[in-house]
């Protein structure tokens, strides 16, 4: 057996009481591509950050070429010829490609941009990159920026390349191009670790696949000897029963009808692709999908926070019986139409709440406009704050405490409590139990169920498939911005959801079709 280029043995890392990685083992040989597969929060990025010196492992050993090493900083990892291409590019916008590539290099020689450009051109030719070294970063497309990042690590002589979800931002054509380059690197004897959760990509590019789930190492398979369903099963695991009470939906009416919603982000990438669905009153509609599949854009479009290219969002008002189109309306206009829409966004302190304000002032966000005078009335919000704190058992020194000082669970209770107090007819929640302990999570599930029983149309964006299966009535699956299926939660399985989540937008598995 050859000596592996990099080997991890029993690597563990915890953040506070949460174990992000538990006894992970990996090996990558020279001229090999390893995929790391796992759902959100399975610890892929944490693991990679330990290899490139951003985090330091609590336990375990790292071997490079058979020798044990200690990687304490990114500089150490450079010395071991490890290069990481992060999901979020770390480039200086106003510098050119070449300037970014040589930035931070401690050469003993003189600053010689010309020589560097020559070398960059040589690397580009060798691997087939198409890049102008003098082009400024701000003029570049996403895929060009990624190319700069890759050349940057090659320029530093990296032999082990780690790519964190490199295809998340690329079009299918750009992905193909990237894969050609990666295969060429493999031929040149480089070791490549690629993080992804797109199954068809795993199957088409890698030699080996290692699967992580909830921070644990599940196993490594040879790509040729495996298939999607086996990988999906390893990735999502066995179904766990959670005992969430689910009542039968009653009195369902079409409350919110979304048709053909299309949305493009500032990089020109489609975030929502012909999304159509109906949210019914008295029912919980789950939305499943890998993070960044369009969940945020979808909810924000409904809330009036995101401009979309085309499509309709129609709200059937139970009071007036009218159907109102929410297209092109601001959040305030939507509210003035009489649409009682509550929204618990993913980024609680960055969107739903104001961290530096106290609980009372945060309660007031929805209601401060009440009253004709120019002055605020803090009486009612104060009462609501007291009620939410006691009903939802928020742990806080008092209602005068800034919410940023509260723990994640308590912050979420404040936000959910306020949104429920708004007496909604549509209740949208994005990852409402993320970072919450078990008790707080169940409290949130119960609140959502309570809303459903009150005839509210609940839209629940979740990441834990077990929760989605037990809490929701129907589950819609998003993949790269398009709906890959709307299934009945009672008659579906985790595997089915897993396959829908990793399906590409054309409905197939890349190479196979």
């Amino acid at each position: 057996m050859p000596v592996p280029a990099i080997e991890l043995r029993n690597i563990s890392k915890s953040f506070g009481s949460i174990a992000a990685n538990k006894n992970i083992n990996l090996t990558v040989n020279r001229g090999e591509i390893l995929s790391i597969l796992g759902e959100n929060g399975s610890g892929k990025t944490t693991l990679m950050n330990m290899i490139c010196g951003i985090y330091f492992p609590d336990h375990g050993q790292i071997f490079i070429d058979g020798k044990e090493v200690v990687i304490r900083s990114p500089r150490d990892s450079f010395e071991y010829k490890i290069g990481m291409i992060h999901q979020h590019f770390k480039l200086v916008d106003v510098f050119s490609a070449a300037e970014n590539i040589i930035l931070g290099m401690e050469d003993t020689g003189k600053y010689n941009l010309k020589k560097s450009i020559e070398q960059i051109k040589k690397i580009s030719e060798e691997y087939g990159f198409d890049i102008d070294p003098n082009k400024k970063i701000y003029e570049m497309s996403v895929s060009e920026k990624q190319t700069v990042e890759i050349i940057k690590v090659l320029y530093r002589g990296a032999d082990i390349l780690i790519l964190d979800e490199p295809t998340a931002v690329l079009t299918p054509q750009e992905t193909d191009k990237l894969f050609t380059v990666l295969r060429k690197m493999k031929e040149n004897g480089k070791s490549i670790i690629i993080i992804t959760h797109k199954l068809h990509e795993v199957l088409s590019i890698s030699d080996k696949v290692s699967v992580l789930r909830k921070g644990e190492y599940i196993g490594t398979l040879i790509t040729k000897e495996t298939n999607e369903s086996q990988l999906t099963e390893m990735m999502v695991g066995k179904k766990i029963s959670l005992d969430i009470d689910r009542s039968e939906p009653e009195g369902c009416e079409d409350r919110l009808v979304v048709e053909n919603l299309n949305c493009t982000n500032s990089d020109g990438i489609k975030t929502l692709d012909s999304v159509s669905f109906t949210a019914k009153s008295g029912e919980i509609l789950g939305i499943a999908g890998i993070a960044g599949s369009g969940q945020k854009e979808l909810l924000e479009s409904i809330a009036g926070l995101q401009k979309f290219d085309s499509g309709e969002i129609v709200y059937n008002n139970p009071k007036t019986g009218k159907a109102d189109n929410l297209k092109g309306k601001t959040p305030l206009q939507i509210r003035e139409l009489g649409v009682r829409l509550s929204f618990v966004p993913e980024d609680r302190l960055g969107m739903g709440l104001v961290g530096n304000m106290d609980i009372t002032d945060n309660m007031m966000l929805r209601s401060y406009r009440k009253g004709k005078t120019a002055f605020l009335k803090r009486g009612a919000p104060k009462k609501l704050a007291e009620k939410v704190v006691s009903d939802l058992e928020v742990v806080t020194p008092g209602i005068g405490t800034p919410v940023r000082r509260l723990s994640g669970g308590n912050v979420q209770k404040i936000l959910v409590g306020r949104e429920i107090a708004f007496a909604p007819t549509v209740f949208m929640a994005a990852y409402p139990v993320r970072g919450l302990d078990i008790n707080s999570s169940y409290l949130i599930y119960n609140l959502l169920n309570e809303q459903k029983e009150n005839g509210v149309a609940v839209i629940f964006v979740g990441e834990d498939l077990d929760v989605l299966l037990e809490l929701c009535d129907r589950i819609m699956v998003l993949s790269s911005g398009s709906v890959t299926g709307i299934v009945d939660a009672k008659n579906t399985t985790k595997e089915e959801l897993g396959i829908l989540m990793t399906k590409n937008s054309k409905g197939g598995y890349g190479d196979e079709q």
Partner: protein
Amino acid sequence: MSNNTGKKAHEPLFHIIKRNGLPFWKSWLIRILSVIAALIVCGIVIVFVTGENPLEMYKTMFEGAFGTERRRWGLMQDLAMLLCVSLAVTPAFKMKFWNIGAEGQVLIGGLATAACMILFGEKLSPYILYPLMICSSIIAGAVWAVIPAFFKAKWNTNETLFTLMMNYIAIQILSYFSYIWSNPKGSGKIGIINASSSAGWLPYIGNNKYLFNILIVLALTIFMYIYLKYSKHGYELSVVGESENTARYIGINVKKVIIRTMLLSGAICGIAGLLLVAGANHTVSSNAADGRGFTAIMVSWLAKFNPIYMILTSLLLVFLDKGATEISTTFSLNDSFSEIITGIIIFFIIGSEFFINYKIKFREKEVITKPEVKEGNEQ
């Protein structure tokens, strides 16, 4: 285990940890200690550099600011003017709109006042002249402030550069009019306006030139305190400042709030210009604002945007300024030395805010000396 040694090398000598709120008295104790520490350090510097008695010097400083009735009123007037500009920049800063153009807004407000006094001072009855002066100074200041706000709201331009550049434009416009209206002709300076008739001068209360200004600023302070804390506008601008996304989420029209807040900010700068020109100097020149537009930023930040605390912080800065001038004349030292003293004191006071917000936790000694024991306990 080799990576355990790695971990130890990883742990730095001390950590900086954010405090989770400090009791009121404790934060003030830290502030008072910082002032004492500043005075001690200044004392050492004074002895080493000049050989003078530091206590003597502090006494001179105090006398320079509070020594005579005239000085006390001068101090009050300067405090009032600085406070007025600080009140003006506060809503903008609370909204995280980095308005460093207060200097220009004050100048333009002052110029508008001076223009009314020069052009109409002896022609219009005071009943028309005063409202005209007030309106034009407010409008001029507000317009000067709303231009960058408009560009920010519409095209998201950088307000810091924009407001800064507006200062230079204001200074140039003022120099131009100083030439046009120079008195005596050709001197390039606007002398005392309406020196004989006192038309357009703000009224003296009793025999006091400054009391009127001080009362106006006091009223503005109370107004700003209420506006920021109890009005819907004040609430909206805080939400916009803290998180633009939350503001949008809740349906606040962010652009409207930016423009409205800058209109207010500029209007108060305009009033500061009015008080300076019609209430105190009775003339205008390009250094009429005297850097207050910038000092005000410090006043506002030090007081954490609380108008009541701003009375104290502007008192501190005005006191240091007056005191420092006094030492340099009494001890015939140059200006630079008194500025060093002021600098040290301000440095300590700003530094104390760090210790109020953070605490420093040193590496625990046992971990370094007895690692094996700790490891044994774990296993």
